[in-house]
């Protein structure tokens, strides 16, 4: 499919000529490069070029959707989308398409160096990761990966909007193991718009974590402070907060925060924003995936819930306006409410200081089992260490954490200066009080 923008225009034109009242095509084109290792040896390189579009149409008052990557099937896709719209007639969820072409300027989303990376540079990066791991005695690489993605997205609709924007993403990942009698593993990854990742440092850090985690004894049980590393922070909070602030979930009674505007949901020194304009953020773009201008949205101010995130459709249902949070997993999917770049704005202090007795947790096993509606969780800690009087002590294994994410948010007692980009969340280290720790010790 050559010229994804032109294909989008053609799909909209065909839809209108076949009887659509309104039509919108979202197209994507991308080049993806991926290098993988099996243990410490590069064994796999891949290059992929993809294009396609997703078409939303309305014949009367409801949307229908179809997508294709096959240029010969444009008319087929248009007809399928129209049929879906006609069958859904009466649902009346069509909220109109975006028409504002004045978009904010965003910075740092497309890096020319990423877009022009040579395969040999990609291989160098992954080899740096391996050298990083090998610099730590007692650790070895299980697998590592480097990938980069250069993409351009298009949005055209029958209201006359024609937008395009582009971006790049680089990812490095490393998994290593250590330990003699019992193996322990540790994983690190880095995400960025540019290739400026410290790959050697990432490998070294994963290796150190694996070595330090080896020989863990059964952990203690009790209610205590838990220090969550950025990865664990993201795993615990992202899904639950996403559901809580999702305007569609609010409308449908799936959000625990549905009736809580103005109520306390976090400590009074914590403010939470979703900033789609954050320079270089992975969720940053001039507009969302239905063409609405991006903006920064205040979700929680001084601990009190301020508002929710919306697509045009969820905003219409809630009699409000879109917040620019309509995001698609790919052109094959319909847009849905998603956070863009979630960030805490608050006082910063080292979470380790002042922790008398607690557990430091780097990673979690089973985070996807967290109940996104109620916030209840019962999950296993991985790469966990005892903390006493502000010092990290011995590793522990087989420890479960249980509690409630909404309670945990209220019980955050410290947030680090350091933050790590975990996709759409800028994750700090945090100390949370009152978590149930269940060990066998």
């Amino acid at each position, binding site marked *: 499919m050559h010229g994804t923008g032109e294909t989008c225009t053609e799909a909209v034109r065909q839809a209108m000529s076949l009887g659509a009242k309104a039509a919108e095509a979202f197209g994507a084109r991308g080049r993806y490069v991926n290098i993988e290792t099996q243990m410490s040896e590069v064994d796999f390189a891949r*290059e992929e070029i993809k294009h396609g579009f997703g078409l939303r149409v309305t014949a009367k008052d409801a949307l229908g959707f179809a*997508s294709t990557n096959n240029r010969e099937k444009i008319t087929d896709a248009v007809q399928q989308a129209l049929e*879906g719209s006609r069958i859904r007639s009466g*649902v009346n969820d069509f909220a109109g398409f975006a028409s504002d072409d004045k978009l904010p300027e965003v910075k740092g989303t497309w890096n020319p160096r990423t877009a022009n990376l040579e395969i040999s540079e990609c291989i160098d990066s992954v080899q740096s990761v391996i050298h990083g791991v090998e610099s730590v005695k007692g650790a070895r690489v299980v697998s590592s990966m480097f990938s980069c993605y250069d993409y351009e997205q298009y949005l055209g609709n029958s209201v006359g909007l024609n937008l395009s924007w582009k971006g790049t993403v680089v990812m490095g990942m490393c998994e290593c193991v250590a330990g003699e009698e019992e193996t322990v593993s540790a994983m690190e990854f880095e995400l960025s718009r540019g290739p400026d990742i410290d790959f050697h440092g990432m490998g070294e850090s994963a290796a150190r974590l694996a070595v330090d985690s080896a020989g863990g004894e059964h952990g203690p049980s009790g209610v205590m402070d838990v220090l969550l590393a950025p990865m664990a922070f993201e795993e615990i909070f992202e899904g639950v907060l996403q559901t809580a602030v999702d305007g569609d979930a609010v409308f449908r009674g799936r959000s625990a925060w549905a009736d809580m505007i103005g109520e306390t949901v976090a400590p009074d020194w914590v403010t939470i924003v979703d900033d789609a304009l954050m320079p270089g953020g992975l969720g940053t773009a001039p507009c969302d995936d239905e063409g609405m201008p991006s903006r920064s949205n205040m979700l929680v101010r001084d601990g009190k819930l301020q508002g929710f995130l919306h697509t045009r459709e969820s905003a219409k249902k809630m009699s409000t306006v879109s917040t620019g949070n309509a995001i698609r997993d790919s052109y094959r999917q319909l847009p849905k409410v998603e956070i863009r770049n979630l960030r805490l704005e608050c006082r910063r202090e080292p979470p380790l200081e002042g922790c008398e007795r607690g557990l430091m947790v780097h990673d979690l*096993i*089973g985070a996807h089992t967290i109940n996104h509606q109620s916030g209840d969780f019962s999950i296993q800690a991985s790469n966990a260490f005892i903390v006493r009087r502000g010092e990290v002590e011995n590793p522990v294994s*087989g420890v479960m954490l249980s509690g409630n994410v909404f309670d945990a948010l209220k019980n955050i007692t410290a947030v680090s200066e350091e933050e790590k980009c975990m996709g759409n969340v800028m994750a700090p280290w945090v100390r949370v009080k009152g978590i149930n720790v269940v060990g066998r010790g």
Partner: protein
Amino acid sequence: MSDGADFTELRIISSRSTGIKVEDNEVRDISTQIDVEAAVRALVGGSWGFSSTDNLEEIERCKRDAAELAYRINRIQPRPPLELAPYPDHRMVVHGPGEDIGSASLTDKIELLKDICQHSMITSVANVRVNYAESNVEVEYSNSDGINRGYKLQRSGFSVRVVAREQGEIQRASRSFFNTGGLEVLRDPGAREIARDVATTAVELLKAKSAPAGTFPVLLDNVLAGVFIHEAMGHACEADAVLEGNSVLTDRLGETIASPGVTVYDDPTKGFFGHLPVDGEGVVCAPHMLIENGVLRNFLHSRETAGILGGEPGNSRAEGANRPIVRMTNVYIEQGDMSLEELMEGWTGIYLVGSRGGSVDTAQGLFQFNAQRGYRVDNGQITDNLRDVSLSGKTLDILSGVEGIGNDLEFSSGRCGKQGQGVAVGSGSPHLRVMNALVGGVL
């Protein structure tokens, strides 16, 4: 088709999928995906190059690119040449297609889905989502050794997700019901029973007690035991993990790793959700015994891992035009001879039912799952409804702690994620009673 590579293979995947989402008896969306993709993999020495496209006119370019990539990494960091295992001689089994999903109109399907949704709309239920998906996929495989194989497969099914609310409490339950086959999956009267069960579970969880924490004897239902055998045991049997030293089962072939009576298979020829006629390397799929009466017998292999470790290939799978990697299909524990009543008789412990997902660290042999719900059982009698009950521990401790195997093998469907790729899998098990396991809950 070698383009100078030692070995080249091509897969062309054409698919057409339709999804219908019904929420609170309203059609939320209808979507159709029409896709075609091609993937080329080339081997030079011990290095793989891979290139994919959605433009079939670019297949020749993909072949050149894949070979070039393989050459370049082999030059920068040469690996010993790979000996790919030969193609085993099996008869291809293709189930279905069942009742043609194209034979019913969207309107008919929506009526069936609304009926299923209606079965979940009971008192205290705040939200019901029924997501239906159907797909027709056609795969053509060919390689430079002259192997040409292809198949067509139809899959369909739905998931039900229910949220119940009462007096500030919010609980959820869900279940999927996908299979290899056509419309009969949707027409199955059992579909409605599932919808009602899911709703009842969500509502009962509103008043359920928090699970206790600590070590208890446990009884796992078919679904959770199926997830356990897939997650904890199946992933550790994947030979890529074994080769990387990332499996607790490395070097354990022939050893007793489970209680006598525990026998585990991966069987792509069974017509459940994980059914597969030909794998991503053109190997005709066949069943493989993983554990025989407690003894570890086999790992799951690609042609590469089987060539290195010995064993039979046939478990290399890819999502669409992705790289094939070692995966499960339908993994199950063979049934024993105890009825549920016999397993419960005089028994005290925690009975865990349904799955909310789980994950595993194959290197350490650790697993963690959350059940949809639980029950406290005292001397054979259910005393309390429990919620947020999770199970964790060491895979091998659980396998060797199995002390009762039910006679009620059932399969459930799921999507298994590995290295960013999701594939359809079936997991099967009878009820399993285990001596002791760590249950996570409230202290």
